[in-house]
């Protein structure tokens, strides 16, 4: 064979060998140097980025604990947890690391547990090796071959119940080169919960197998409880911060349409893999999946995290908040600059010749209540809810509301002008915004008369004259 041919065959052979190697993830076969104990964090905190430039042996010790905690104000649930929190402790390792995993089942627990980490290459993701009775510990090891953000969860039968009780969390496998530096890293994970009582029904609520099978949750939550990262627990930040959210979805059933109101994700690591998408409004996160989203905070204010399957945010608890302090930038966002009456050219659409119908005027208290109910349903019910019960930590109740009944004139002003800032209703603080609703005096009178005569409130009647008096002075 001619030397040139030999050379070309060698090159071809080498290329084929390299091609075969290319099927192996980069982490495979990394040299393991040294040993360290993993730093685990509770949500919404994330361990510091990894400074190492080599693979090492990382010892992870995770304890399963079954505990009763608040799922909402006045509502308790028995959570099954990895490390005492929902979601479980955040684990951060580097591509190629050898993880020695210690799975501990607390002796006071009632059932056996195990863990399936999606970052594991191997049957069951560790499930078989980690299966432990209460009061036992199991140890197994795995090398993290692929970088990315991975869900872990309990996989003991009945697996849906273990996950529905909160048994999931995230493990981040940093790529060798690390991730771009940001100012604030957050850990947020969505999960759906199924209780025997409806949303907000008080007391210790047992898991409802029927609702779980029907995939009809009462709660859809970020970080395991209503208000875990909203209201008083809103995550503070500063204008100028670059924020990264490690967002996971534990399920067990729902897929999340993750969105931050008032922000655009500059970068999304789609499905937490290596594909980067830019300028994303809403990213779809499957149950048992994750995404890494990066964005910068350009203006101050409250940025609300939601599952944009929006009834879940409004009615089932899927709300989080990042509260950014700092200076306004009116070029990027002006705030309201002007306000005026809008009169379309040529009058109202569909107007026809003849007398305009007179505005409906209630002739009696009964009519006022009937009319007020229609106004309530159109303008108020979405936040204050059908029975005036409000939404814990987000929207105050109108039913048996001490704040409402104490001062009806104040209520007139609020309905007319809107309200923002902290108020206390029935001993609970609320700090949200109610917009001005643009109702007429007649409509304000009707809706307030309706509300005052519902749900154990003090009764009485508000007249349009009284509304006028309060709003414009005698």
């Amino acid at each position, binding site marked *: 064979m001619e030397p040139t041919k030999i050379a070309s065959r060698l090159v071809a052979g080498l290329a084929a060998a390299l091609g075969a190697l290319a099927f192996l993830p980069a982490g495979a076969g990394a040299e393991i140097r040294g040993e360290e104990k993993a730093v685990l964090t509770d949500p919404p905190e994330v361990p510091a980025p990894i400074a190492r430039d080599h693979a090492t042996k990382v010892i992870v010790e995770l304890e399963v604990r079954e505990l009763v905690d608040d799922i909402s104000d006045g509502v308790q649930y028995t959570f099954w947890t990895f490390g005492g929190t929902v979601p479980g402790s955040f684990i951060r390792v580097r591509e190629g690391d050898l993880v020695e995993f210690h799975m501990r089942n607390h002796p*006071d627990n009632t059932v056996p547990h195990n863990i*399936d980490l999606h970052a594991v290459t191997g049957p069951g993701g560790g499930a078989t090796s980690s*299966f432990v009775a209460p*009061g036992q510990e199991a140890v197994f090891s795995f090398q993290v071959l692929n970088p990315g953000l991975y869900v872990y969860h309990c996989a*003991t039968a009945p697996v849906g*119940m273990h996950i529905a009780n909160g048994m999931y969390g995230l493990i981040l496998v940093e790529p060798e080169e690390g991730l771009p530096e940001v100012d604030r890293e957050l850990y947020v994970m969505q999960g759906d919960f199924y209780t*025997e009582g409806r949303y907000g029904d008080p007391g210790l609520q047992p898991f409802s197998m*029927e609702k779980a099978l029907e995939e009809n949750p009462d709660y859809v939550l970020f970080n395991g409880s209503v208000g875990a990262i909203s209201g008083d627990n809103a995550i503070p930040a500063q204008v100028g911060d670059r924020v990264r959210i490690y967002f996971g979805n534990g399920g067990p059933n729902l897929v999340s349409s993750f969105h931050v109101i008032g922000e655009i994700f500059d970068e999304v690591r789609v499905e937490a893999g290596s594909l980067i998408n830019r300028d994303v409004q809403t990213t779809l996160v499957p149950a048992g999946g994750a995404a890494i989203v990066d964005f910068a905070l350009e203006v101050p204010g409250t940025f609300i995290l939601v599952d944009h399957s929006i009834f879940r945010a409004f009615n089932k608890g899927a709300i989080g908040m990042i509260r950014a302090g700092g200076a306004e930038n009116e070029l990027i966002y002006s705030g309201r600059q002007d306000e005026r009456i809008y009169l379309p050219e040529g009058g109202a659409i569909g107007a026809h010749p003849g007398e305009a119908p007179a505005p409906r005027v209630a002739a009696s208290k009964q009519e006022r209540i009937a009319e007020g109910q229609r106004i309530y349903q159109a303008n108020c019910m979405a936040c204050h809810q059908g029975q005036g019960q409000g939404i814990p930590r987000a929207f105050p109740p109108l039913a048996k509301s001490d704040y409402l009944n104490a001062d009806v004139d104040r209520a007139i002003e609020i309905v007319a002008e809107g309200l923002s800032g902290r108020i206390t209703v029935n001993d609970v603080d609320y700090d949200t915004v109610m917009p001005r609703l643009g109702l007429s005096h007649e409509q304000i009178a009707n809706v307030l008369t309706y509300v005052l005569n519902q749900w154990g409130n003090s009764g009485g009647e508000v007249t349009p004259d009284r509304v006028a008096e309060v709003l414009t002075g005698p």
Partner: protein
Amino acid sequence: MRCGSALLAVAALVGCAVQASPPGEGAKTAMAAIEGGRYVPLYGDGEPVEVASFRIDRGLVTNAQFFDFVRAVPRWQRAEEPSLLMGEGYLRHWAGPLEIGSGAKAARPDAPVTHVSWFAARAYCDWREKRLPSLDEWELVALADESSRDATDDPAFHQKILDWYARPRPDPLPPVGSTSRNVWGVEDLHGLVWEWVEDFNSVFVTGESRADGTFDRQLYCAGAAATASDARNYAAFLRYAMRSSLQAGYAVGNLGFRCAADAA
């Protein structure tokens, strides 16, 4: 045995005179006669299994009853170095080898004994001239609720059992007979503690290696449902998962037992 009843009345336990011999007829009337029948196990080939008539203790074995046993058979007293047969943590909820303890946080004499290995449970039943129930016997009698011998088609029956798991384990455990009594007159099958059965590991361990059997496929994730006869029976899944997590030498805090015997 009679000392056990006396113990309920007086909290002081040490020094109670105990009979060293197994009890007589009294203990036998404490058993319920169960008519044999057929049932479909959660894991199997989907075919009903025939269970012969048998007798089973109405109540779980209590701390006081187990105290009688260790007094009579000293080699089952808690030791500094627990043997493999006792298991790590054997009777750890007792104040001492021959003292259940007193005070609010102490184990109650009338509560089910826990922290006992399968070996210890077996030895106790043997001492009582009984045996542990088989898995099929236990499951058959546990199909019943207050009014029906087979309540498995009633969603409320399953939910009631699941509600048990929603409550944290009381510490100390309440007395036997405090949760439920089914149509056979057998108490606390659901709602108090898990129970040892003779062949607790028979479902999953098929040979020398767990990997050669159906162990993985049956127990984890969706595979658990693929081979089960009733994928909606979450309460049964929890029981089978619990049993298969055990080894005979484990002494677990919410795992007790009751004894059985062949039909009279």
